[in-house]
């Protein structure tokens, strides 16, 4: 074992011991209730209408004792399929409204000395206790409201480190916040944690034109990065509906997938390095820019998807693919769910390397969008279609790609997989199609209160969930579903 590896191993061990004290309430672990990031499960405290929202993951379970995978109660047909596959890691735990979550007395309360100390570290302007605090306390869906009394805006890693060191010494609870565009209440405080917002750390540090490796601070807004890279001829490997406000640090912390997951893969593959500040103020510099680096343990993967429970990400080094000129979009209609699945398989086969996005929405979602957003229209004829699919291809040769896409579409139409479809002829029409798909969360929010679930299920069983929920909830509630590649978002 080289000294570098020993150092990394020591750091890892220290990480495991230190983080639990300030960021995750130990009581949760003792009771067997668990959450990815303390606020996720506990954010359902005193709100009687809140329902458990937990990331349900069937893909294996990390070390026992650190965290265990939680499974909400799903209908039996889903449960049965997986019990046999992961017998060792099954552990049932339910988070429910019945259990009232109290603010732990282990965490101290903010007092004026603390505020003065923060003002000393950050300066007067970046310690916020006015109306901006209200916006930071409430999430994008306006479902979860915390009662934090202090919002901090650090401008450098050093400031973040000093803040966390102080909070650790005083045992003050802390919640890291990025763009506050998360839909599951993970970015807002549960009780009165100090909010550390990374919005001011928005510098692009460097960009290598040859390899396409971008190093930037965690507070850079995704859309700004996309337009910066656009000038250089590159593109970000992820793209979300929330790109106007979401920050890259938050995307990495939540392992955001986005619309281009099918083409560029998840952030675990695209992030090359991170700089993270741990809960006790230690700065962990893992900001490598090498595509392959096998020295020691690859700790950055712990932080990708950790949702701010292990440390605050301050710098990100990300691999960006080159921007390809020929983008084509088709908006299609299918009659039933089986055709959609077959269409996905067929698309991967026929379109192969040029396929860059495959999105699905059902007719209820389309109705909600058409009714609640302005300036959108259904590209297909008004006859009722049951399911809509959006396919995007990105390649280098305009004519070749269009020919390939047309051949695939014509073939699918003749074999009956799709009942109708439209091909975008210019960029405006393409943005109109994307507006329909990306506007679903926004229009649902305008339509009324939303319960949103992020689920992973076997592909064949996905839509059965919607049918079952519609049967259970009755006609009053709108139940709809959209999916991108393998993950689905179920809206109720």
């Amino acid at each position, binding site marked *: 074992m080289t000294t570098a590896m020993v150092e990394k191993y020591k750091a890892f061990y220290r990480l495991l011991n230190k983080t639990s004290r300030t960021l995750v309430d130990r009581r949760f672990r003792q009771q067997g209730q668990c959450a990815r990031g303390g606020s996720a499960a506990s954010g359902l405290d005193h709100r009687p209408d809140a329902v458990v929202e937990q990331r349900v993951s069937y893909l294996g379970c990390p070390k026992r004792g650190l965290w265990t995978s939680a499974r909400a109660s799903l209908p039996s047909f889903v449960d049965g399929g997986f019990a046999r596959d992961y017998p060792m890691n099954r552990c049932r735990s339910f988070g429910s409204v019945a259990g009232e979550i109290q603010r732990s007395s282990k965490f101290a309360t903010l007092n004026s000395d603390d505020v003065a100390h923060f003002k000393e570290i950050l300066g007067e302007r970046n310690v916020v206790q006015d109306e901006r605090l209200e916006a930071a306390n409430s999430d994008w869906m306006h479902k979860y409201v915390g009662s934090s009394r202090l919002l901090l805006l650090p401008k450098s890693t050093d400031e973040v480190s000093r803040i966390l060191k102080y909070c650790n010494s005083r045992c003050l609870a802390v919640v890291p916040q990025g763009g506050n565009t998360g839909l599951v209440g993970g970015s807002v405080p549960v009780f009165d944690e100090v909010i550390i917002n990374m919005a001011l750390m928005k510098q692009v540090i460097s960009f290598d034109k040859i390899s396409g490796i971008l190093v930037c601070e965690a507070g850079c807004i995704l859309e700004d990065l996309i337009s910066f890279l656009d000038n250089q001829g590159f593109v970000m490997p992820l793209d979300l509906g929330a790109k106007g406000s979401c920050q890259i640090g938050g995307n990495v912390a939540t392992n955001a997938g986005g619309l281009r997951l099918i083409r560029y893969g998840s952030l675990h593959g695209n992030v090359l390095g991170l700089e993270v500040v741990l809960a006790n103020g230690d700065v962990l510099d893992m900001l490598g820019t090498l595509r392959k680096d096998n020295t020691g343990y690859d700790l950055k993967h712990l932080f990708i998807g950790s949702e701010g429970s292990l440390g605050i990400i301050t710098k990100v080094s990300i691999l960006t693919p080159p921007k390809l*000129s020929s*983008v084509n979009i088709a908006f*299609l209609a299918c009659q039933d769910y089986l055709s959609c699945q077959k269409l996905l398989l067929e698309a991967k086969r026929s379109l192969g390397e040029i396929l860059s996005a495959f999105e699905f929405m059902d007719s209820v979602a389309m109705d909600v969008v058409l009714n609640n957003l302005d300036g959108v229209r259904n*590209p297909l*004829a008004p006859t009722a279609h049951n399911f809509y699919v959006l396919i995007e291809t990105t390649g280098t040769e305009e004519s070749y790609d269009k020919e390939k896409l047309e051949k695939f579409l014509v073939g699918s139409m003749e074999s009956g997989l799709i009942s*109708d479809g439209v*091909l975008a*002829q*210019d*960029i405006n029409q393409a943005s109109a199609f994307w507006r329909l798909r990306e506007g679903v969360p926004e229009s649902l929010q305008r339509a009324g209160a939303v319960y949103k679930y992020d689920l992973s299920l076997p592909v064949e069983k996905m839509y059965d969930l919607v049918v079952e929920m519609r049967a259970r909830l009755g006609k009053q509630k709108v139940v709809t579903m959209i999916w991108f590649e393998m993950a689905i978002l179920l809206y109720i």
Partner: protein
Amino acid sequence: FDQEKKIKNRESFSFWIPSQSNVCCPFKLTLSSLIVARVEHLSPPAKMKIMVAVKRVIDYAVKIRVKPDKSGVETQNVKMSMNPFCEIALEEALRIKEAGLASEVVAVTIGPKQSIDTLRTGLAMGADRGIHVEATGDLFPLAVAKLFKALVEIEKPGLIILGKQAIDNDCNQTGQMVAGLLGWPQGTFASKVVLDKEKQEVMVDREVDGGLETVCLNLPAVITTDLRLNQPRYATLPNIMKAKSKPVKKYTPEELNVGTKSDLEVVEITEPPKRKAGVLVSSVDELIDKLRNEAHVI
């Protein structure tokens, strides 16, 4: 559209012979309604042809870059598509045809070999035939108008619809020049077009500086479309499939006896100056001082 027509005719049929509606089987009714439709169509002769000009330009949403040698704009590896005003023109032509006032819509494009893509888009939207005049090099509006005149003498359309301007040169001249060369009336910046078949005239609402002006033109006429005329339709897959088999006729300027050499020459193309950052002033006196001495506006 076909579906709508059938239903409409079925309704009119049942109005004619109400006693038979219970007796006839559905299959017979459909056949009869088809016959009724054909009879209806014979009465007003809709032989008018509409010619629509479409141009292949850099896509509206692309960020334009000037070539380093200032000779033009970067067009390599840049997305090209149909001029948005031409889309609106084609949509209007298709709506007139669907209203039964025209029999055929011919899409015309003048440009290099790749312009055929734009023509295919036009055919996919619903045009019946395409004409491609293959001409390389910079084409100025006068040359285009002369080529159009030559094509009009061959095709003899009753109405020509163009977009008001092309977004790559913003000339706003071609429509007016075509009308001038042919001696036809013109209705430019159209925001509403109403065709009257019997009186052989068209009412056009024009968007002018002072508001809206309505002109009445005798057919044949030239119309150029403005943004608010309609919202163009999408190219649906069935239409894209049909477009592959629609005929496209090719011409060259030599065949049409038109010289495309222009009296104009583009000397240099530069970007507009970048917007300067704003300046924060600390007092009203400083503001007045700057306005007077630096900006020279007061």
